[in-house]
């Protein structure tokens, strides 16, 4: 029975989501990490609200980046370890489609989840509610871009034993542009200025990455698995 591309992608998406939702503890860990890292900053610097509000874009973004990166290692590793990945490779389905579906599923439960709890964290840092839409939009675009970059890194490091540190090492330099523009967009929103320029750039970065990264991630998987 031959399955069309879209159907196959839909199946992989549903499967990955189901698997993730089954392990709620693993789902929640990056979110808790996000909260903990955010807390580290007022503790180490100062709880003074004007300082916090100034730091908020940076703190939010760095914490979100690190939390999202932490979970990227699991994108392919689970399936690689139990042999599912090889089966998917042999299935004759487009590996690119599978990678896109898996990455998107992963983003939904990590990046998108981060975006949803970001208002909580933002309030703790004194970010005004008016800034939330821009902040969440920028975080959404940013975490999605990061998921694609992370997929490339995960594809390259899936077989390695200490893969997760190397993954972060590889992905973080590539993520610096989105950090710059995302934090800037949030910063402008907090200051009441228009963040459109930064958001457009973030958007185009996301589009660019979404178009090309799946190719690279698929190639990476082929290199490490075959």
């Amino acid at each position, binding site marked *: 029975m031959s399955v069309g591309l879209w159907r196959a992608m839909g199946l992989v998406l549903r499967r990955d989501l189901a698997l993730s939702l089954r392990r709620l503890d693993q789902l929640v860990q990056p979110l808790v990490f996000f909260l903990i890292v955010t807390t580290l900053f007022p503790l180490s610097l100062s709880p003074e609200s004007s300082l916090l509000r100034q730091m908020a874009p940076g703190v939010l973004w760095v914490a979100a980046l690190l939390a999202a990166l932490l979970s990227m290692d699991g994108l392919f590793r689970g399936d690689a370890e139990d042999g599912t990945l090889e089966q998917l490779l042999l299935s004759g389905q487009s590996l690119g489609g599978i990678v896109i579906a898996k990455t998107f599923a992963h983003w939904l439960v990590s990046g998108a989840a981060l975006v949803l709890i970001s208002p909580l964290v933002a309030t703790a840092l004194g970010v005004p509610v008016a800034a939330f839409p821009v902040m969440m939009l920028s975080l959404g675009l940013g975490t999605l871009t990061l998921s694609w970059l992370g997929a*490339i890194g995960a594809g390259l490091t899936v077989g390695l034993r200490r893969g997760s540190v190397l993954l972060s090492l590889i992905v973080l*330099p*590539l993520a610096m542009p989105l950090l710059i523009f995302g934090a800037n967009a949030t910063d402008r929103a907090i200051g009441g200025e228009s963040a459109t320029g930064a958001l457009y750039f973030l958007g185009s970065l996301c589009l660019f990455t979404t178009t090309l990264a799946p190719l690279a991630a698929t*190639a990476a998987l082929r290199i490490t698995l075959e």
Partner: protein
Amino acid sequence: MWTWFYRLASPPYVYRVAARFAPWLLAAAGLLIVYGLVDGLVFVPPDYQQGDAFRIIYVHVPASALSVMAYTFMAVAAAIGLIWRIKVAFAVAAAAAPIGASFTVLTLVTGSLWGRPMWGTYWAWDPRLTSELILLFLYFGVMSLRVAFEDPNRGDRAAALLATVGVVNVPIIHFSVVWWNSLHQGATILKLGTPAIDPSMRWPLYASLLGFLLFFGGVLCLRLRGEVLQRERLASWVREAVRP
């Protein structure tokens, strides 16, 4: 007509040819660098704004140019290796990486030392230096990835893919950093600019640049021999090459 290209894909050919080119490249590089440095340090008049400190450009600018060129070169070699499955290309990429990384370190340190008298601090997140720092991270990523695999062939290919992804990102990163820096521009102009160029200042700079480029070529040839040998040590041609 393309035979020279096909020959370049042959490890024993490259191994022999690199040995012949290296001394010439290095000798020419040596002459140019000596000329560039001596002229730049001794004969060129001091800059009216920066005094004698500007002479650092004769080392800093070639190093920074080469650090970026080496990465691009490495990425092109890596892409060639991936697309046409030419193993020698991976050896070239592997050889280029440490050379480029060392130039990046040189750029950062000389940039920092140049910044101290100019800005009063050893590091001020100048856009060019910050881009160079990120470039250093990219180099480390590629080099670390290559050695992380037990199978060197896999390591070569994974590192090659990363280098290709990285090179696409380099302009984006550079643009982002320049933009970021322009937002937070203080009263002082924090750019490491070459001063208003007096023609007498240019020639030693060009010489130094070309010298560094030839040096890169020469050391690449030297390193390439080791890299090719490593990858081909079980091949039959190696027997004759190693024990003539």
